[in-house]
C-alpha cells in the first residue's frame, strides 16, 4: 500500500482519464486488435463491442489498440474506426514500421481522428521522417516505450527517458515534448521471460515517483513468450490475465493486455484488483475513488 510523494498527472483523452495516485482512477485497459495483420473486421467488431460492454460493466476504461502491420491495411482499419467506434471513443495505433507510422499519421489527420489518438509508440528507434510527421500531425497522446538495450533495470529505463542511453540525440521525454506531444504515457517495456522481466513492474513506481506521469506496460508480452507455461497450457490464459494485476498493484495506470479476445478475463480480474486497491488507499490515505471507478459498482 503506497501513495506517491510526487504530484501525479491525470491526463484525459476524449473523456477517458488516466494517471493519478493509486486508488483514484481505474486501470485503463488496452486490448489489441488485428495482431495477425490482415484485418478481420467482422470478428473484430464483435470483440470490440464485447470489450466496450465489459468496460461499462466494470468501470475500467477500454482502449482498442490497433495493430497496423502494413500500409495496405491502413484504409480498412481507419474505415473500421470511423464506422464502428463510438464517436468519442479514444483508441491507440500500434505500429512498428516507421514508414507505416508516417502514413497512418497523415491518414488520421485527414479523418480528423488525431484528438482521439494514442500513438503507440515513441522509442529509441524513432526516425527523422517519423519526427517530421509527428510534428506535422501531432496526436493527442503518445506512449513512450522505455526500452533501453544497454540496461534493462528500472534505472536503465529512466536513462533512456533522460538521454536516450546515447542511442538518440536527446532523451525520449524531450524528443516527445519537442514534437509538441503534451500528453505522455510511459510503457516500462516488459521483456522476455528471464530477461529482467520483473524490472518492467518494478519500474512502474520508480518512474511514477520520478516524473508523475501515467505509467504501465504490456506484461502480456512476457506471458505470451513463456516456454515454461507450455507445461501448464490450461493455466496460460489465467496467468496472462492475472499478470496484469501487478501493474495496478504497483501503482500503474494502464495495461496493454494483449489480444482483445482476452478481455472477458482481464476486465473483471483487473477491476477486482482496482477495487481492493481503492479500499485500502481510502482506508489508509483517505483517497476516494473516481465516480466511474469499479468500486462504485459495489456500492
Amino acid at each position, binding site marked *: 500500500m503506497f501513495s506517491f510523494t510526487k504530484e501525479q498527472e491525470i491526463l484525459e483523452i476524449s473523456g477517458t482519464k488516466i494517471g493519478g495516485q493509486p486508488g483514484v482512477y481505474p486501470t485503463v485497459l488496452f486490448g489489441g486488435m488485428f495482431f495477425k495483420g490482415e484485418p478481420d473486421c467482422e470478428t473484430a467488431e464483435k470483440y470490440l463491442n464485447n470489450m466496450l460492454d465489459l468496460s461499462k460493466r466494470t468501470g475500467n476504461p477500454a482502449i482498442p489498440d490497433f495493430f497496423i502491420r502494413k500500409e495496405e491495411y491502413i484504409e480498412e482499419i481507419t474505415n473500421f474506426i470511423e464506422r464502428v467506434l463510438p464517436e468519442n471513443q479514444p483508441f491507440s495505433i500500434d505500429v*512498428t514500421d*516507421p514508414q507505416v507510422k508516417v502514413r497512418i499519421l497523415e491518414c488520421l489527420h485527414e479523418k480528423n481522428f488525431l484528438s482521439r489518438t494514442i500513438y503507440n509508440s515513441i*522509442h*529509441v*528507434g*524513432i*526516425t527523422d521522417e517519423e519526427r517530421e510527421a509527428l510534428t506535422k500531425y501531432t496526436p493527442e497522446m503518445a506512449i513512450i*516505450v522505455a*526500452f533501453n*538495450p*544497454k*540496461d534493462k*533495470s528500472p*534505472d*536503465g529505463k*529512466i*536513462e533512456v527517458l*533522460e*538521454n536516450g542511453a*546515447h*542511442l*538518440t540525440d536527446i*532523451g525520449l521525454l524531450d524528443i516527445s515534448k519537442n514534437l509538441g506531444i503534451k500528453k505522455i504515457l510511459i510503457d516500462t*517495456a516488459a*521483456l*522476455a521471460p528471464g*530477461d529482467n522481466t520483473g524490472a518492467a513492474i518494478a519500474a512502474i513506481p520508480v518512474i511514477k515517483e520520478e516524473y508523475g506521469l501515467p505509467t504501465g506496460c504490456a506484461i502480456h*508480452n512476457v506471458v505470451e*513468450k513463456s516456454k515454461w507455461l507450455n507445461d501448464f497450457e490450461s493455466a496460460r490464459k489465467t496467468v496472462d490475465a492475472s499478470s496484469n494485476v501487478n501493474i495496478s498493484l504497483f501503482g500503474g495506470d494502464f495495461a496493454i493486455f494483449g489480444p482483445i479476445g482476452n478481455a472477458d478475463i482481464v476486465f473483471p480480474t483487473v477491476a477486482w484488483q482496482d477495487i481492493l486497491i481503492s479500499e485500502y488507499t481510502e482506508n489508509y490515505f483517505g483517497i476516494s475513488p473516481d465516480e466511474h471507478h469499479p468500486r462504485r459498482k459495489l456500492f
Partner: protein
Amino acid sequence: MNNKIKTCVIGSYPVLTDAMELMNGYFNGKEIPWDKYIQYAVSDMVNAGLDIVSDGQTRDPFIQIFTRKLKGCRIRARTEIIGKVEYNAPITIKDQKYARSLIPDDKELTGVLTGPYTLSKSCIDLYYNDEKDLAFDFAHALKQEAKVLQKHVDMISIDEPFFSNEIPDYGKELIEIITKDISCPTRLHACGNVSDIISELLEMPVDILSHEFKASPQIFDAFKDYTFPQKICLGVVRSDDTRVESVEEIMDHTKKGMRIFGEKIVQLAPDCGQKLLPRDVAFQKLKNLVKVGEKING
C-alpha cells in the same frame, strides 16, 4: 619495445548504431548482438593499417562503459553513486577478446580504462561525500579490471581527461594503484592543454604519456625543460575537427615532435578518442596517420 614508431588509437571510434534494429529485437523478443559494431570499428582500424587497435569503445560513452558495470553506480541522466564502488565482474574483457579475434596476428590490441579521477569527477555522488574516497574506490575497482585485462591486451591505456583541469595531490597514487605489477606496457592519456601540469604528469608511474600535441602544440614547449623516463605517444591529428590533415601536414608535425623528443616517441595517434567524428573522416585521418608512420619507419 623496439624502435619502430607504432601507429595507434586512443580508444573510441565512431559507429552508427541501428536503434531501430535494437527495437525490433525488443518487439520480437530477441537480443541483438553488439558484435557488429565492434567489428565495424576494429575493421576500420585494421584496414587503415594501424599497428595497435582498440575495441572502439562502441557500447557507451567512456564513463558509462565502466559505471554501468561497477557496484555502487547507477545510470540515470548521469551516473549516480549510490553505494560503495566495487568491482563486480569483468567490464571490457568480452569485447577485447572479440576484438582480438578480429585482428591479424601482427597487430596489437590496447585495452582502455577510464581513469579513476575522471570517473569520480563525472558522477553525481550521493553516497561518499568525499571525492578522494570515491576516486580511490574507483582506482581499486579498475585495478581488478586491469589485472584481468593484461592477459588479453598488449597495452593498457588509462584515459584521464580531467587531469588537464587539475591533478589532485593524490593523482599519482590513483594511477599507481592501477599500474603497479601490471605486466603489459601502460599509457596515460590526458587531453587538453597540459602545459601547466607537465611536472606532475612526469611523476606518473606509466610507460607512455599521451597528449593532444596537434590541438595544443604549446605542449611541445612545456616538455622542453624536463628530462623524464616515459616514452611519448604523439597526437598528430585532431579529434575535434572534421578537417582531414594531409600526410604532409602530419609529417611536419611528427618531425617537429621527433626533433624535440627524439626516440622517446614510440606511438603516433589521434589527439584523443575519435567517437565524435564522422566515421569516414575518422578513417581517413587514421589512413593518413598510418602513411606517415610507414614513411618514418621506412
